[in-house]
């Protein structure tokens, strides 16, 4: 990679919630009083491609859903550029997991992309031709403008993922949360997504990406969050993405769970 390696930021600067793109403090999320995320503290600077990495069940999706207020927090606070999610909602985009929607739904690729604009269009107003034009441009940028009028069930998995990416692009926000955009896509789609992510970064946007493939982490992301119910490590990828930290994240699952349940027993 030829991109300039950012100098490690002094800790005091990272932890200043005003300058951080995302600042999380003491976040705990539990399902039926079982913790999924435990006491998460994070502070991530602007204009980074952030990979959120960890084993299955580590709470990666839960983390971004909690940031987006899609799940109730047991405790803790999340700030985006120093303000609460609700205040900053219009500058935050979301790319859900592909399997989270019904792809047999009777809508076209273009209609799905246009959904990214619904927040801007507002209640009681309909999708105008200029919105459709924006949506078409977004589809063009991810290379599937020719499929705009296809019903979404007739797209391949990779094409469906590109539709979601185009929707995020049309939404044009400053921060993105993406839930496994690289899951089960073809090589061409993977390239298209990473190109788009790099473009986002060059525009100063910050992307949080749940990622599974350890082989590509250091190639794709300049910031890595290693997560296994707690934050194992968060920082510039070349510092954090080490064998030792990975074995802590993936190998130490049992010990962390034990620690957490002990702590729960003490607090309750």
């Amino acid at each position: 990679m030829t991109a300039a390696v950012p100098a490690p930021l002094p800790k005091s600067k990272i932890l200043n919630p005003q300058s951080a793109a995302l600042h999380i403090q003491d976040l705990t999320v539990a399902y039926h009083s079982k913790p999924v995320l435990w006491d998460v503290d994070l502070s991530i600077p602007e204009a980074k491609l952030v990979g959120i990495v960890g084993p299955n069940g580590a709470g990666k999706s839960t983390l971004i859903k909690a940031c987006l207020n899609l799940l109730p927090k047991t405790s803790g606070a999340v700030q985006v550029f120093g303000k609460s999610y609700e205040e900053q909602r219009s500058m935050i985009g979301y790319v859900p997991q592909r399997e989270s929607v019904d792809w047999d739904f009777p809508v076209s690729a273009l209609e799905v992309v246009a959904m990214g604009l619904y927040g801007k269009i507002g209640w009681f107003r309909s999708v105008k031709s200029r919105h459709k034009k924006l949506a078409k441009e977004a589809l063009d940028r991810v290379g599937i403008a020719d499929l705009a009028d296809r019903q979404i069930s007739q797209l391949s998995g990779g094409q469906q993922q590109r539709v979601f990416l185009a929707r995020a692009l049309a939404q044009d926000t400053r921060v993105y949360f993406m839930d496994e955009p690289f899951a089960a896509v073809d090589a061409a789609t993977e390239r298209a997504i990473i190109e788009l992510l790099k473009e986002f970064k060059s525009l100063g946007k910050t992307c949080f990406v749940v990622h599974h493939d350890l082989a590509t982490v250091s190639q794709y992301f300049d910031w890595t969050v290693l997560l296994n119910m707690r934050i194992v490590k968060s920082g510039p990828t070349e510092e954090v993405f080490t064998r030792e930290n990975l074995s802590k994240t993936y190998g130490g699952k049992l010990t962390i769970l034990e620690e957490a349940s002990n702590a729960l027993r003490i607090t309750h």
Partner: protein
Amino acid sequence: MEWYNLDTWIVITGALCASACAIPGCFLVLRQMSMMGDAISHAVLPGLAIAFMITGSRSSLSMFVGAAVVGVLTALFSQWISQFGKVDRGASMGIVFTSLFALGLILIVQASNHVELDASCVLYGALELTPLDLWHWEFLGLSFKAPRAACVLTMILVINITVIGIFYKEFKISSFDPALAKTLGIHSGLIHYLLMTMVAITTVAAFEAVGSIIVIAMLVVPAATAYLLTENLVIMMFVSVFFSIAAAILGHISAILVPSWFGLNSTSSSAMIAVMAGCLFLIAWIFAPKQGLLQNYFIKSKSHNKAR
């Protein structure tokens, strides 16, 4: 076969009823919550009975208010029970709507000792009797009259189309991707309860004509048929209305004709409309261009031949 003015009104009322149901029905089918229609159509019964007992009249407005309240409560209760009672959504719906339905039946049986409100009519409806209850009104010096049920159902149809028309994109996004809708500041829960309210008032309007059981067929079957045949949400709604009208026409005609082939008297039109809706679904399922039975068979045999 003899055809009277009365038969025309029966077909029109049946078609209006099925069409009014089909529009919210499309969203029930797409949100994979068709059984919520079942639940609400049963659960509104106590709302009807209580409204009737309080006001002492079958006036439509109080009935609609009663039904809308209970319809939304059904949706709320079943969500609470599945959320806090740790039972799945199907079971919680089963608990809520059967209890409410039974309560409604008890209330109606009690009330019917004093006033005219028939339990069997609530269950099966009386489509054949609706043309006898006429509304008269004058407009520009001309006087009109039409069956009350047809007038009420027309209003409900117009209301349903208007609500979907106003909130079309909110309905679309909160049915397709509720999480995204929430991050865009579109309250999916609000749309959910709006849909539940629509289903509740539509069910009440349909009660008299077709009863609380056939109405489920009208909510679900034309919408499911249209779902098989279309790739666009607006077209799906139009096609579902088309199938509703077709089922009403075919249903009433076959209610008169089919039993006569066996030397019997004509049968219930509302039931026959539901049967015809089912037949149309079957035909669509066999011949659907993309997911149809025949098409799948041909694709399979083609690839089989290729493999050989």
